[in-house]
Every structure is written in C-alpha cells, then in structure tokens.
C-alpha cells in the first residue's frame, strides 16, 4: 500500500512537472469531484485491474469520466500512461496525490469547518480569513454542521486543527480528571 502511494506520487509529480503551468485551480476542483466519484465507486478501480478487459475499453471509460473537464489533456495523459503500464487501478491514488501536490505547491489548504449551529456565510468567511492568517495558506473549505460539538466551532485540515467548543473543553476536563485519578 505504501509502495503504491509512493509510486502514485511519482506519477503525480511527473504530471505537475510537465503540465503544471496549464493546470488551473478550477481543474483541480473538478478533479476532486472525480476523486469523490472513484471513492464512492471502488468497483471501477477493480475493473481497471482486470487484464482481460481491453485497454481501449478502459481508456474509453476513463475518457467518459474526464469528459466534463475543461482542460482534460494533462489528466488523460496520466490515464494513458497508467493504462499502458498496467497500473490503471492507481488512477485514484495518483489523482489524490496530484491534488495534494498541487495544493502544496500553491500553498492551498483544504479544510473542513464544522459548527454546532449553522452560521452565516460572512462568519464562515471570517473563519476562513482567520485560518489563512494563522497558517499562511489560502483556505478552501467545506462546511458541515456537527451537533456533537455541543457549542462551538472546529476547523480541521490534514495537518492542523483549530477547535473552540464545549466538547473540547469537556474532553480536556475528562482527561485531566482521569490523569488526576
């Protein structure tokens, strides 16, 4: 598994090295939808593993998947390369790595903001600005409500967490009490 991730990263880095200038942030956002689709339809990856399915069929299927992209050339190049090397099933991990590397290169931090109560778009923007200030990155966020916070807000990316909630305070209190015996 670890080996596959490393390999996928190499493919993704190669795509960025060659097509990096032509890939826009919108392209990446669209690729993310494909990633979500593949995540939800893992069978597709299984079919890509099967050797008795002709490579042209696989390519056609993936072409359909990428058809809505405004700039599909870099991604189809990746698809072709993976299929030629019998690694079509790695498309999901390669795209995921591609997105991660793109974000790293452009200092973008995807983030999930959850709140106990629904908040206005202005408030979310304020949170976004706050996180951007704190991390020094551009923040793109997905918003969700989570009543288990009881009252408060939580912003989490892959590497940082900011939480200000009653749930956190209770958790810390419980840990403190447990450590005190």
């Amino acid at each position, binding site marked *: 598994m670890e080996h596959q991730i490393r390999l996928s990263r190499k493919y993704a880095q190669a795509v960025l090295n060659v097509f990096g200038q032509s890939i826009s942030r919108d392209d990446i956002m669209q690729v993310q939808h494909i990633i979500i689709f593949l995540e939800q339809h893992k069978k597709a990856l299984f079919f890509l593993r099967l050797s008795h399915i002709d490579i042209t069929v696989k390519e056609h299927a993936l072409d359909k998947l990428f058809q809505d992209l405004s700039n599909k050339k870099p991604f189809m190049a990746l698809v072709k390369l993976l299929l030629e090397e019998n690694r079509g099933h790695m498309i999901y991990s390669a795209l995921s790595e591609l997105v991660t590397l793109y974000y790293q290169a452009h200092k973008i931090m995807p983030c999930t903001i959850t709140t106990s109560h629904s908040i206005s778009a202005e408030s979310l923007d304020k949170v976004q600005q706050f996180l951007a200030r704190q991390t020094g990155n551009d923040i793109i966020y997905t918003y969700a409500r989570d009543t288990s916070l009881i009252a408060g807000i939580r912003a989490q990316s892959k590497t940082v967490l900011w939480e*200000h909630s009653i749930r956190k305070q209770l958790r810390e209190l419980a840990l403190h009490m447990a450590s005190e015996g």
Partner: protein
Amino acid sequence: MKDRSTDLVSLFEKSLCDVPQETLDEIGVVVQVGDGICTIYGLTNAIYGELIEFEGGNKGIVFSLDEDSVAIFLLYAAVPVAELEVVKRTGTVFKTPVGDAMLGRVINALGKPLDALGEIVCKEHRPIEVGIPQIVERSPVSESLETGIIAIDALVPVGKGQRELIIGNRNTGKTSIIFDTILHQKDKNVICIYVSIGQRQANLARFSRMLEEHGVMDYCIVISADSSEAVLNQYLAPYVGCTIGEYFRDQGKDVLIIYDDLSNHAIAFREMSLLLRRAPGREAYPGDVFYLHSRLLERAGKLVSGGSLTALPIVQIQGDDITAYIPTNLISITDGQIFLDTKLFNQGIRPAVNIELSVSRVGGAAQTKAIKRMTKALRLELAQYNELLDFAQFGTELDEISRKKLARGARAVEILKQPQTVGYSFVDQTLILFLLKEDFLDKIEVKDVQIYIRQFVSFMQSVHKDLYAIILKDEDVSDDTIKRLQEIGVEFDKLFVPTEDEDLLD
C-alpha cells in the same frame, strides 16, 4: 433559536480575534493501529521521541519518522484508538515526574502510583533521555557500596558509581542478592530504586511486601512494568528509574538502581523494532540493541559534585551460557559481573557466586582497606581448592599439602555461605575473613564453621566493643589490631563448644 446562534457566532468571532498562534494544533490522523503501535498520517513536524496525544485520551511516543507518516507506540493498552482519530503534537518529549514524594512508593513506568497510597505530587518533570555526565563531571569510583554479602564484598566488591552486572540462570538467587543489598543500605543514606521489567506481578508484589515487612520502603522506590503491560512501558521503565535516580544523585545523594532484568528489556525492544519493521540482526535483535543498554548504563557514575548512581543490572541466561548476545553486550558495557552458578546453587552454596567467572573491574579501588587486607590470598586459595576438588573426585591419593589446601578451601567456601536477609557489616566481614586468614578455622569442623564465625562476631560485638569500634572508625586493621584479634581468637577458641555428632546425640 436564530438569535441564540447569532449570539454564539459573535461570541466566537470575538474569541477568534484573541486567539493566539499556539491554539492551532498540528495534527495527524490514525491510519493503522494494532499491537500497541499506531501509524499516523500527518504530523509533518513531529520529532523523534515526542509525546503525542490522541483525541480519545490515549498517548504515545514517536519512534519512527517516515515520509508521510509517523509510527507511534501507545502508552495505554486499554484506551481504545479508532481509525481516523485525530492526534496532536505536544511539542515536548516524554517526561517523568521526579521528587522526594516518590520515596516509599510503587509506581508504574509513567510515574503513576500502584500501591493505593494516594496520588504522588511532584513539582518537577524530567525528560527520560538526557545526556550522560561528561568526563570532567565524573570522579573515580573510590567508595565502597556494601552489599552485606561477604562473597561479593570480599571478592567482587562494588563501588559507588559502578555498574556491576548480575548474571545467572533462572532460580539462582539473583533477586535475593538484590533484596539483601537493598536491606543492607538501611541507615546508610543510599536511595534504592528497583526497576522490575517484564516480571510476573506476583513476584513484584512479594518483593515489595518483603521490603515493607523489613521496614526499608522509606528509602526505596519500586518501578514496575510487568509482563502484561504495553511493550512501550517495559521499554521506558529503566529510563524512568534512571531519571528518578538522577534527580536524587543531583542533590548529592547516593543512589542504587537495580534493573531486573535487562534481558526482558531487550526482548521488549526487539518486539518494538520488529513491529517497526526494522531489519532484524543476531537473535532477531535490531542493530542498535547495544546502544539501548549502553546509553542507559553510561548514566551511572560518581560525580565530582558528590552524588553517585550505582547500577546493578540483572540479566538472565539459559543453560549457564554467558556467551549469548545480550549477556555479552552487557558484560562489555558494565564494570564487572557477578555470575551466579546453578551448580553451586544446587549444592547449597548460597549465594551461588561463581568466584572464577565473577569480576569487579573497579571495585577493588573502592574496597574497604580492612577487607582488602584480609582477602589478599582468598581468590587464589579458592581457585586452587576448586582445581584440587576436581582432581580429588577421581579418588586420587593426595599429599599432605593438597589435603590441607582442600580442607582450607572447604572452610573458605563455608564462610562465603550466607542465609538470606543476614547481612554482614564490613567489620563483621573483616573479622570472619581474619579467622580464615589466621588459620583459626583450620581446627574447626566444616559443619561448625558457620556457628563459629557468627559466635565470634557476636563475641566481638559484645565483649570487645572497643576493638570493634576501632575497626569501624578506621576502616582498616593495623598490626596492633591484628595482634589483639589474634589474642581474642585464642581466647574465643577456648570458649567455643563445637556441636556434638548426631550419632552421639542419638
């Protein structure tokens, strides 16, 4: 409801404005967990040995830094860790509480009490991995650390700041020696730390109960990482013990630390290394298993500032084979070893110290002058006795000199026998060794030797208190003292009544 939520938001907006940078935690997520080890994605800036907190309440220590992930060993085996659980950096390495409040307590590797005597309140916390004292900070081992065991104090003496390995098969009395040594430190201002690694809980319970019964817990600390605990705790326990010992040493106190035993510690480390997929070497131990123990034992020593940390690591061997991997490592790290022989143990020679295979590399310099004077020829005599004994087993007719050597050797072996919990002070040992050196035991039956020496010591303590006090004060025996002792020996000879033969009694 909307009003409430708006209020809440404005409250958070206010708090957002005041939030300092520190509250932005660096996190990772659990991607794999099992066997006490956890793989975390993220934690890009984590450092080796850093303490990591899990949202679910568990804690762990970073042991491997990979490109995308870090491997963490969990501190609490019972606290569950879920996949995708968020973990946070603490920015600090694992620290243990240290302080006087630890004295008299039984704790685990995390410094938590196990003895139901309440919480331990310590103001200071110290990292468990610290730099060892430098050469200029150390002073030579020059002061004796009495064990109260004549076989050790006379032939393989241990000095304060020394590292003396206790090596032997299972059931050869390794822990008994340790127990007697701890007992003997009573009123000697030596703090004893006993670290139990991978032992059975019942054994530890018995050991600490014995310490309590003998009223010596006041100056003892017992640290336990039993065999049922997480492998990380077994790995940490000796370092925690050493750190606590260093706290007292830095206050200028003498500390004795016992690691019981380091073979279990090496096994725990091997398990961790294999789980981390590090390349196995000899006996499947990782390549740095030597460093595991060398960096621990190098922390022992006597400091110029006054304190000392004496280490008595124990290692268990199989089939009396001292050439196994871990024992040879430890033999080379330490300043000598006390080898406990199964054969001697089964012959009833207890403590079963094999004099020929035991050595103290620096202890001689630390030995009390009085004992040193009395033991000059003892090792040689015992060696000659063992050689002749092998020869005599073939029924060979021996000459007068050989017979005398055999008789003397038998008496020498007899005086080195010592029941458990009976400790001899250095003066007692000097007197006993004097009896052997000055041939007073030659005319005593072997079966009477133990009674004779004990009665003589008692006679000296009660009748010749002045002379006893002189030896105690001078820590040496002058020619005059020897002359007086000879006179007393002659006097005692007349008083001593040997035990009657069993046949006559019947």
